């Protein structure tokens, strides 16, 4: 599934098993805090590659508030990047703030595109 904007993920499989969830949650948390995007005040969904029709469509479906906040976070992070200094600690993204605000929209747009493809290439059989 290399062609999809969200890429391959083992998360649903891991979440389906309590044992695996228990095992992987500390590792996942450590990894997320280790990758620097939270220190630059970004959310994980701000890192999704934008240059795809699915994501472009999904971005139009954000509420005005979500779109504004996203633009603000990206500008703030760009400025911090130019200065080569992470943001002050109180502006870091807290783990509970790191919600997937965009990926549900992307998944939905993807499903819509797949459905359109299905109807466009349908073969009708007479019963």
């Amino acid at each position, binding site marked *: 599934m290399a062609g999809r904007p969200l890429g391959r993920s083992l998360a649903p499989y891991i979440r389906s098993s309590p044992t695996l969830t228990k095992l992987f949650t500390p590792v996942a948390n450590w990894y997320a805090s280790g990758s620097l995007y939270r220190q630059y005040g970004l959310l994980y969904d701000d890192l999704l590659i934008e240059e795809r029709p699915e994501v472009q469509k999904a971005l139009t479906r954000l*509420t005005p508030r979500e779109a504004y906040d996203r633009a603000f976070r990206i500008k703030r992070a760009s400025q911090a990047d130019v200065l080569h200094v992470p943001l002050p600690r109180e502006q870091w993204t807290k783990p509970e703030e790191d919600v997937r605000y965009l990926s549900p929209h992307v998944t939905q747009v993807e499903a*819509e595109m797949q*459905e*359109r493809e299905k*109807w466009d290439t*349908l073969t*009708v059989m007479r019963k």
Partner: protein
Amino acid sequence: MLASQTRASVRIARRSFATVVENAGFKVAAVDSNQPTVSVTFLAKAGSRYQQKPGVAHALKNFAFKSTADRSALGTVRESELYGGVLSSTLSREHLALTAEFLRGDEKFFVDVLASVIASTRYTRHEYEELVLPTMESEINALHTDPATRALELAHALAFRSGLGASLFASPHTPITVGDVQKFAQTVFAGDIAVLGTGISQSTLSSLVSDALSLESRTVPTPAQSQYFGGETRLESYGTPQTLFIGFGAPGVPSPELSTLAAYLDPNPSVKWSRGSSPMLQAEQTSVQAVYLPYSDASLVGLLIQGPNAQAVTMAGKAAVAALKGSSGVKAEELKSAIAQAKFRTASSVDGRAGLVEVLGSKVLAGLKETSVEASLSAFDKVTATSFKNTTAALVKSKPTFVVIGDTQTLPYAEELGL
């Protein structure tokens, strides 16, 4: 020969829904005249008079056939296309009609589509912004280039203010959100829905509907009784015909006298391509339409005049006012022909499928015992010269509804026409 005669008699006999069955919160009525296509209409009390916020009924009308729990908006359209059916939603001041027309044999699919629109439309924000709002905007733009429809919208607002006065269209920059639409849908789709079928038997339709969904049979709150107010308004508009509406409204159940009055006022000749000699037509310079709009508890009668310049419209308006004021002095033979015309119009309106559903559907939904057109036709036999004169005299005594759209500098005021 005999066969064709029999069919004709069957057609006359079946210009009505024979029985109305209450089924799972629905009133189901059907008439089958062996036509090759079937239509099923879900008629809900969701017209603009039931809306809590202006424009929400318009939004709900355009939300029909969007994604539901069963299938997406695209899926609904593509699947109906494969079956060769037509889906439509129609809004009036009292009702919202969701209609499917299709070939015999596909009843199950289309009843299911209509039922899922009622029961499980998802009212998503992105569909509202991407699909519903653009359609509403184009309908509103079309309204703004059509002064005749606009004049009637304004006339309703003046005549009835709230309730029936609410416009069928949202305003261009509507504050309606998808949450408002969903809330409105929950109130109006909870009960009080009539299912009307043509080309399908009552029992088939009944069982299909009860398989598809059941309602809680809650009733939609009854709106306040309509009152007539009247008034005058003028709207500047360029590039459209000069438009003038002169009308009167009457509260209460629409009477056959008012229908007769509309037929009496109509100056258009009954023979196609012939020239009307009425002064209202100004030697074919202006076009005149007699307006008669009956609702469940009020009606609006009037004349809609359109012309290329203000002078012609003013002259035609004077003639129209004279006709309205002089209608109580009607001659016996004029009244007779007006009654015949009104009767013919009533009868021919239920000949078509859309008319049958519109005229008789509202009776089914109102829970009336009598759901045939014969009663409305026989009511015309009771119209006498005295009753006609009394009704029209009372009507023209009330405050007129006067709407002008076009060059407001030169178009006349109500009192200039003698109102």
